[in-house]
């Protein structure tokens, strides 16, 4: 936890949320061009307290509380970035990012292609379900933006990656959307090294080695997939588990290397089924690894419905380790 003296990381176990806070703290410390802009990010420290302490250290000019105006947040950040600043925009819940859809997809994303104007902004916020937030506080809207050339889309699963990728996002010259799965905020802890480091954008990582099939996932479902992989191992099925970390640009190489070895692929995402990243991965495998496939590409996803509120409904809606286990068993039979 960043102390008043600004010593942020000390190489200990931190929560996912703490890692994000450290990344912002250290980047603002490193570069006065970095500012934070969003709703209730200042005095209150953010709805999830991810920016707690930042106002106290960096002041009103760099930690900017805004009206409830997502388009104004993104628009103003874009304008700031044209003057060389590197704003971090917080969406109080990532669900509200769609209120700024036009600013992001038409203004920010197209500027470099059309008129050579880089917009180094980061848009970050809490996403995902499993915490009974209901239909408007649980969304996984990443694929709206994966379909938008000009953006980068990051969705990490560990504190180490969250910190390193957020720092990389702040330093990137392109607009980067950074999804923080709120289920992980306080439930996941991990090692974060002392000192500055970044994690490269656009690189997936193999979380668990295996030879019988490949499970591709990201964010909270990464942990669920690992849980399923443990259960599969007890039945003699060794699943290789890949954490995408970045959805745009997608790391095709890591995906292809694994599937060419295991010859079977299961994609797990918490996003709804139709138009999820699984469809894109299927297309890549058909184009580039068709002869290597010994079974159909399978997917375990949320249902094609809004995220329901009641625990019984939401649990039915979401993927879980049991669903992944069953699908993987079926795939392994090919």
């Amino acid at each position, binding site marked *: 936890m960043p102390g008043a003296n600004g010593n942020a990381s000390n190489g200990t176990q931190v929560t996912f949320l703490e890692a994000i806070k450290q990344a912002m703290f250290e980047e603002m410390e490193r570069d*006065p061009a970095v500012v934070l802009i969003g709703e209730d990010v200042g005095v209150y420290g953010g709805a999830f307290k991810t920016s707690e302490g930042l106002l106290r250290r960096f*002041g009103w*000019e760099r930690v900017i509380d805004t009206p409830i105006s997502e388009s104004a947040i993104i628009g103003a950040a874009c304008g700031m970035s*044209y003057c060389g600043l590197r704003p971090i925009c917080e969406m109080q819940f990532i669900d509200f990012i769609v209120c700024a859809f036009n600013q992001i997809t038409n*203004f920010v994303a197209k500027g470099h292609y059309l*008129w050579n104007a880089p917009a180094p902004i980061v848009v970050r916020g809490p996403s995902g379900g499993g915490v009974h937030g209901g239909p408007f506080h649980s969304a996984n809207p990443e694929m709206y933006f994966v379909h938008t050339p000009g953006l980068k889309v990051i969705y990490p699963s560990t504190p180490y990656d969250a910190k390193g990728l957020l720092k990389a996002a702040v330093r990137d010259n392109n607009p980067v959307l950074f999804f923080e799965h709120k289920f992980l905020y306080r439930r996941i802890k991990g090692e974060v090294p002392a000192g500055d480091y970044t994690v490269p954008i656009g690189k997936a990582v193999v979380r668990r080695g295996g030879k019988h099939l490949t499970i591709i996932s990201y964010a909270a479902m990464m942990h669920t997939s690992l849980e399923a992989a443990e259960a599969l191992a007890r039945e003699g099925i060794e699943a290789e588990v890949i954490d995408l970390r970045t959805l745009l640009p997608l790391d095709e190489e890591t995906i292809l290397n694994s599937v060419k070895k295991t010859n079977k692929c299961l994609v797990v995402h918490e996003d709804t089924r139709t138009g999820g990243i699984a469809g894109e991965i299927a297309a890549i495998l058909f184009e580039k690894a068709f002869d290597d496939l010994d079974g159909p590409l399978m997917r375990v996803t949320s249902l094609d419905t809004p995220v329901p509120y009641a625990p019984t409904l939401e649990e039915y809606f979401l993927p879980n380790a049991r669903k992944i286990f069953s699908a993987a068993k079926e795939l392994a039979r090919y």
Partner: protein
Amino acid sequence: MKKELTRQQYLDLYYYMRLNRGVEDMMVKLFRQNKIVGGLYSSLGQEAISVGTAYALEKKDWLAPMIRNIGALLVKGVRPRDVFMQHMAKYDSPTKGKDGTSHFGDLDNLHIVSPISMLGDLIPVMTGVAMAGRYLGQKIVAMTWIGDGGSSTGVFHEGLNFAAVQKAPFVLILENNLWAYSTPVRKQVPLENLADRAKAYGIDSYIVDGNDVVAVYSTAKEAVERARMGEGPILIEAKSFRRMGHAQHDPAEYVPKEMRAYWQARDPITLYEKFLSSEKLLDAKSKKEIEEEINTLLAKEREFAENSPLPPAELAETGVYCTGDDCHKIRVKWERPIEEVTPPRSSVEAVWTVPGFGSGQGSGGANAPIHFGDTQPAGTKRAEAGKHTAKVAAKVAPKKTVKAASASSSRKAGR
């Protein structure tokens, strides 16, 4: 029109209005020769707004044009060839053929932000530019334009409200040309004066005759300097008329004939020529010289544009992402000590203060909340603003404003 500017300033305004019209006349010819790839939007009759407002900016200031602000671009230093090539989708155009019309910008030198077709989006973007300029100590002003139709968008509200809350050095020109495509302003906004929208944001506004270039310039100049001094954003409604259709394809038969005739008789360039000659600032000889200068320039610029090739097809696949420092070295121009915004000097006590709390009239001076209609500090401010803007009205009100009376009353109610 009153004589307050230097001779050179008067002639500059004339030159740029003529250049604006000359560039657009030339593009109509190119359009008829099928040399313009997409649509062509005209600012015929509105040149005084683009030119007069942009002329109020300094070189370091930023602007973002809308579709009918070619004149503002020319004033800011864009070459006519760039405007031609944008419309002709040429490889040498600022966007290399990737976009057309006024959709281009220049971050490094001219400080121009490119618009997109979705109206209103520039308002928060230019608010951000203004905030960044203030943060970096650059003392800049950011300016953009919006139409009567564009003022109906949600992002107009979000942007102007945020600018007002931030007291950003931002000037918004609300170009009321009475028509949004085929829809008359009455069906866009249920207000006589669109400047009244400013009241909702607690910011000052002006109303100006958009066909009187001196009035437009004087008003914009005052607004720009007030914004630069930290008075917050200012809205200027410039009343005018869209003489052509929405674009070249649109004959605008929905516009009543008498309305068109009224405004045709109030052509901003003709009006200004009369003023200049009555003030002995322009005679037939110097007018001819200016015309010849512009004609020669535009012939040369057109030739350059026509000779530029279309972009190579493979260009379509390039440039989606900035690849890093080799592509763009993003620099920050600090014009204040960085120490002011870095710890320890940046550190503050993270608490809200509520100025005036407990000092409302109903409190009897004791600790009591401020009630509605009982906010003394704001009341004081209102009186001051009224005084100030009344003076403004006397100074910049043109002789023949469309609504001179409501203009001054609007200013009084500006806060």
